[in-house]
């Protein structure tokens, strides 16, 4: 049976979650909710590529979609709001993915903070450059955020270069960085505005490229994220494009509450002390610590888990593909759930596979 691209994405995610979380965890994932739970789940189930990739989704739309999947016999509800794939679902998904693989460069977790602002700046810079080389000063910008307008104006000034060279360099960087046989750069290019040419809306772009709107959206993100990979691999080669990437305000994107915990922890407070000082439960502080481990590569956990125990937990996790905390705990019975979560968080997505 034929399924849509979005249904394939949803089935793919449900397959990974395997009924261990409700369907609403998917909603929070698409929305990119900055809560410890969502962030940890994204890592635990290797769903980080999808973090904050479809914020226009609503609970109602998601529920409808799940109902449809159940009705079509592709998924089954095993507990309230928890679904798993049926055999038919798995088979259909595999068939679909063989034909239309999921976007390979998608990396919402890594890029969600920079994607929108990059796109705003890029589209405006291109429109301005294009009008500049045609000596057209009277045009209405396709962006109306004052912040973006000022930023681009400043950026052009900083380049200290004549308009023709600037546009040409921009062209050369883009044409090289976008060229990638595993993406569809035309999805980006049809949306660009320039001199006497206004770019297409997402809806028009989807229509003209013959993709359904959800597929268009993910392929568009895929294209941008592939572009980011290229730029960040060799920033010296793409100085203009690299300059458009907004430096995140915080190097470590922590939720606000976690940030507070982190600061206290750095001052040497223990979990119990932080909990008392902040008038929060110890388990909440533990959630914060797990989030810190997920967000900061190289954060040392040995003050919470002895290295020897860490090794045993890791071994148990490797044997246990479902990664259910409970199953790991059965194998390492002297470990607490907190210790297990820390170890899983530290080793991120791939390493126990």
């Amino acid at each position, binding site marked *: 049976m034929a399924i849509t691209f979005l249904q394939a994405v949803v089935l793919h995610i449900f397959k990974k979650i395997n009924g261990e979380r409700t369907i609403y965890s998917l909603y929070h994932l698409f929305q990119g909710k900055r809560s410890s739970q969502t962030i940890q789940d994204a890592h635990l189930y290797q769903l980080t590529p999808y973090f904050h990739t479809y914020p226009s989704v609503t609970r109602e739309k998601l529920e409808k979609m799940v109902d449809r999947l159940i009705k079509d016999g592709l998924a089954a509800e095993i507990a309230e709001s928890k679904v798993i794939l049926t055999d038919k679902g798995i088979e259909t998904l595999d068939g679909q993915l063989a034909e239309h693989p999921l976007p390979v460069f998608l990396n919402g977790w890594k890029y969600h903070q920079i994607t929108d602002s990059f796109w705003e700046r890029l589209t405006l810079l291109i429109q301005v450059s294009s009008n500049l*080389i045609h000596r057209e000063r009277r045009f209405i910008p396709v962006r109306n955020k004052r912040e973006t307008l000022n930023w681009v104006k400043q950026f052009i000034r900083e380049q200290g270069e004549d308009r023709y060279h600037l546009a*040409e360099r921009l*062209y050369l960087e883009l044409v090289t960085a*976008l060229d990638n046989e595993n993406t569809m750069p035309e999805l*980006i*290019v049809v949306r660009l505005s320039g001199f006497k040419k206004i770019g297409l809306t997402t*809806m028009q772009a989807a229509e*003209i490229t013959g993709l359904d709107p959800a597929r268009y959206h993910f392929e568009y993100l895929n294209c941008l994220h592939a572009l980011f990979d290229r730029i960040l691999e060799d920033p010296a080669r793409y100085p203009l494009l690299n300059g458009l990437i907004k430096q995140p305000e915080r190097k470590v994107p922590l939720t606000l509450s976690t940030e507070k915990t982190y600061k206290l922890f750095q001052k040497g407070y223990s979990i119990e002390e932080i909990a008392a000082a902040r008038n929060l439960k110890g388990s909440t502080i533990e959630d914060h610590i797990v989030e810190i481990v997920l967000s900061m590569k190289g954060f040392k956990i040995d003050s919470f888990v002895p290295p020897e125990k860490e090794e045993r937990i890791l071994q148990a996790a490797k044997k246990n593909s479902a990664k259910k905390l409970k199953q790991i705990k059965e194998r390492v019975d002297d470990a607490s759930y907190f210790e297990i979560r820390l170890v899983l968080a530290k080793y991120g997505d791939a390493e126990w596979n």
Partner: protein
Amino acid sequence: MELKGYLKKYFNFDEFRPGQQEAVESIIGNQHTIAMLPTGTGKSLCYQLPGYMSEGPVLIVSPLLSLMQDQVEQMMAMGEKRVVALNSFLTPPQKAKALENLHHYKFIFISPEMLGMESVIDRIKGLSVSLFAVDEAHCISQWGYDFRPDYLKLGEIRRKIGEPLTLALTATATNEVRRDIADKLLLEKWNEIVFSVDRPAISLALEKVSHFQEKQQRTMQLVRFLKGPGIIYFSSKKVAEQTSAYLREHGISKVMAYHGGLDSESRILIQQQFINGQLDVVCATSAFGMGINKENVRYVIHFHMPMQIESYLQEIGRAARDGGDSVAILIYSPGDEQLAFQLAEAELPDEFQIERLFTFLIENNVVYQDITRLEEELAMFCGFTDIQWRIVENYLSNLESVDYNQDKRSLLHLLDNRLKVKQSKIKQMLEWIHSQECKRAVILRTFNEKLEDRPENCCSYCGIEMEDFKETDASSDERPIGVDWKQDLASILLLSERI
């Protein structure tokens, strides 16, 4: 220099449009002025030109944020840098910075709510404003079709900033409304520049169909037949989307829907595509067209009846700005007025919602000053829409003291009046639809005018030759997009000789 010399110098125009010269002369003659000029005559020139000719900044009050944003952008696109918009789009630091630098600006656009703040008034007091311009001034009148309670404060504010020279601009205001404008702005003497609401270049057609499907089919026929570009107005976002999709499915490709439910990127792009000629037709709600300058719109179709004659005139007025012959067609099917009545009711909070509101206020002993902070909670508890909430908030936050029972009664009374005004406006529109005489004459009569010169294609009652509006050249220069993205990118960023 003569006035036309200034016109040439600042705008590079040779001639004024009807009414502009009279309005500008009245202002530079130091008279308070109420100017009623038809839409599309470039009202903004009436405050810009006097602004250039005198010292001190021009303060422009504008009711709609989107309109304000458009005007600022257009002025900037024309190369005027000393222009700023003070409204709720600004973040607190941006606002602080704009206020600090206010004396550097020549044209200050401001929303009525922002102008209501003491700190802002204090800052403006020190600027010696050369002209206080009130755009869409009919919003100040309860008799107007678009009454805005926060406009009522403008008279008092005007007094606080030293009663500067004042210009009230509107496209459509009856005698009654114009008197009310002067009264509310506390003008003792004023000069009125009133131009006819008549737009002889636009033929007025009314067509009746029997049901929705027929309406959609007729719309498609018209779009195929008529010379574009055109705008089709709807009262419902959903029907606008549906019809746009219906037209596209039937091979009319350069059409898009435009409404408030779209994201801001799409809204800007669609508007610009239309201006740039990439789209022939826009299926729009009334949000579309305000503040956009497109000279060559050839037809306006109303899929739903407007809620009042004033909006009808505003919307058809987006056609024929270049003076070329154009046609406005309203398609009516029996019962269409029900949607209008429903919308009118839905805009205002109902009795049940007001009861719940006051129950909450009394139980929690809320002072009205705190009401803005409770927006989310109250909107949820009473089920207010954004528009409903603004009406309630505005009313209560302007009360000096608290007397819950009295205030509830007077609010209900006010709402009841507003509803009656709206309903009578709809009935007036409906009478026009059903009238068995010249459609143009009926509209003019509403504004106490007489039809002097009947244009050739006057209206569907007098007779219209639709062939005159037919599309004659069926050329389509559709360029395939996305065939070669590198080529497309090059055509944007490289000059053709360099490709």
